[in-house]
């Protein structure tokens, strides 16, 4: 076995290089997909009856007059320097358009992520403390049912029940029109339904995973040893088994962060939440290529690096993993 502390730095360097390679490949793919599409970017936002002089001016302004190789080169340079081009729709830098939407998505995703992980892990633990009982079966089916639901459908049901019939919660949006500035109570009211929706849908990712990995761990010899030397079941469970049983959740967390955009697109559409998800969807339908390219890129990078960090953290937590 390779010494962890000798192998780790070189492993990190190697994995980082692979990650950077992936970033370049993904960036190239993004660029290619959007520019090789029928029509190309310029057919999207130009009025066909525009005069040739005006057309040339606009193309020049957006850098579309240059040869495709040069556009690609400028795109790669631009990514690094934060110059992501002008949005066709907002005629503002794409960077600014996206940056303005980041807080809304974070305000939605961070609470739901925390809630999902905590509730999911707790449910898994409760399940596995009494495996194959009614409670276990109920919790597992509960998580699994929501897992198979379309996220937008659950959103609709909750909206109809709580906003239309019971009228206790607002029907979408992030703030009420009447409030000015940041009103915490108002924000929380708007937050409840989307967060509950996202949490219910994603619970199974963690609860079923913790349950199955704990069942596996509790079956192992070292647990039998711990029981054999007379430790209480509580101590065996929480001190010895839980540590290893929770390892797979680290991987799941890494994957989960990467899938946030997918969840955001659907959830933000249903709840009219003004974040990156609705921006992605709107920009695709408007064919606002600079914004789409940039969003794609950001989320690909987020996925690549959350995977990278997951692998490294996993290695630190689980000394059995060797780096080669």
């Amino acid at each position, binding site marked *: 076995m390779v010494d962890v502390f000798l192998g780790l730095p070189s492993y990190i360097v190697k994995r980082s290089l692979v990650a950077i390679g992936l970033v370049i490949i993904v960036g190239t793919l993004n660029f290619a997909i959007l520019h090789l599409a029928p029509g190309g970017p310029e057919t999207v936002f130009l009025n066909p009856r525009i005069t040739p002089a005006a057309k040339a001016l606009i193309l020049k302004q957006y850098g579309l007059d240059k040869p495709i190789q040069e556009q690609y080169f400028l795109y790669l340079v631009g990514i690094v320097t934060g110059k992501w081009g002008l949005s066709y729709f907002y005629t503002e830098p794409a960077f600014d358009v996206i940056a303005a939407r980041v807080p809304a998505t974070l305000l939605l995703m961070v609470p739901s992520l925390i809630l999902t992980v905590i509730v999911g892990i707790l449910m898994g633990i409760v399940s596995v403390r009494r495996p194959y009982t009614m409670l276990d079966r109920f919790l597992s089916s509960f998580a699994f049912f929501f897992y*198979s*639901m379309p996220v*937008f459908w659950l959103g609709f049901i909750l909206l109809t029940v709580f906003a*239309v019939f019971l009228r206790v919660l607002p029907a979408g949006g992030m703030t009420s029109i009447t409030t000015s500035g940041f009103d915490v109570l108002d924000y929380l009211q708007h937050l409840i339904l989307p967060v509950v929706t996202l949490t219910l849908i994603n619970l199974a990712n963690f609860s*079923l995973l913790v349950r*199955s990995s704990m*069942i596996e761990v509790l079956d192992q010899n070292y647990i039998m040893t711990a029981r054999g030397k007379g430790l209480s079941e509580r101590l065996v469970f929480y001190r010895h088994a839980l540590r290893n049983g929770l390892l797979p959740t680290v991987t799941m967390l890494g994957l989960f962060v990467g899938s946030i955009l997918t969840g955001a697109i659907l959830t933000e*559409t249903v709840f009219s939440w003004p974040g990156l998800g609705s921006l992605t*969807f709107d920009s695709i339908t408007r064919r606002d290529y600079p914004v789409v390219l940039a969003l794609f890129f950001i989320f690909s990078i987020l996925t690549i690096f959350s995977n990278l960090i997951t692998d490294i953290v996993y290695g630190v937590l689980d000394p059995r993993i060797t780096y080669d």
Partner: protein
Amino acid sequence: MTNSSIAKSRLARASTFWRNYSRNKGALFALIFLVVLVLAAVFANYLFPGDVEAPNLGVEMMPPSSSAILGTDYLGRDQLALIVFGARTSLIVAFAAGGLLAVVGTLAGLMAGYYGGKMDGLIMRCADVFLTIPVLPLILVIVALTTPNLLNVMFAIGLTGWPVMARVVRSDSLALMKREFIEIERVMGASSRRILFKHLLPNQLNSIFVYASLSIPAVILTEAALEFLGLTPLSVSWGFMLNVSIDYWIRGTWWMSFFPGFAIFITALAFYFVSEGLKEALNPKLKRRRESLAVQIAEQKK
């Protein structure tokens, strides 16, 4: 062995399979449900004769009643008829995209596992790239840039979903390659094609089958999401019915969003149960271990 005894042993195997499968009551009900759904979709024309898409003025957005059990939509059309016709879209995409994903993933995984080395590296890095790009936005872009029709939706879903399948098949192939019977074949000079398709493939058909059925719910949910987002203006589909209901739910027309969504949910759930039943029946060692489904879902996500 004579022909009749081969037939007998096949029959015996089929009946063992069925006994194991039907022991899982959830899987049995799910299968019955799916068979009924497929039949209803196939014979939709006979169940609901006439043009179900034609608007009926005067009965728009009626709640469920004896004349329209699931209510009517914003054009006064019977929602039950629309949902049965919508099953066609869902099931066609589910089977076609699921099949495409399975074929591409299986071939990629077999090649990676059999040839190893550079081929393995190339295929698996390709898979990594696909796993890195956020899938739903990628599919959205593909569908938005090409003509948004059913065929492109199927291709987009099928071509973005293969990497997980490829990983599963690759690791199974790697394990099989170390087995003696493959080594003997190689020593005897069997061709690559023989080893790939006479040994590697048949020996993991069961797990390929199970994983393909396990990927179908995800295909159904993705297809519904695409239609819900309104990028594929298909006249009759569950996702698009939900898309239309966005404009009306605030008036309390719960049936317009509830029933199409319920159809998506229950169909996806049924495929999960069937895949669980298949796995238990094809792999008796795993029988009665329900947690394995969760493990597989977790594995699939990796």
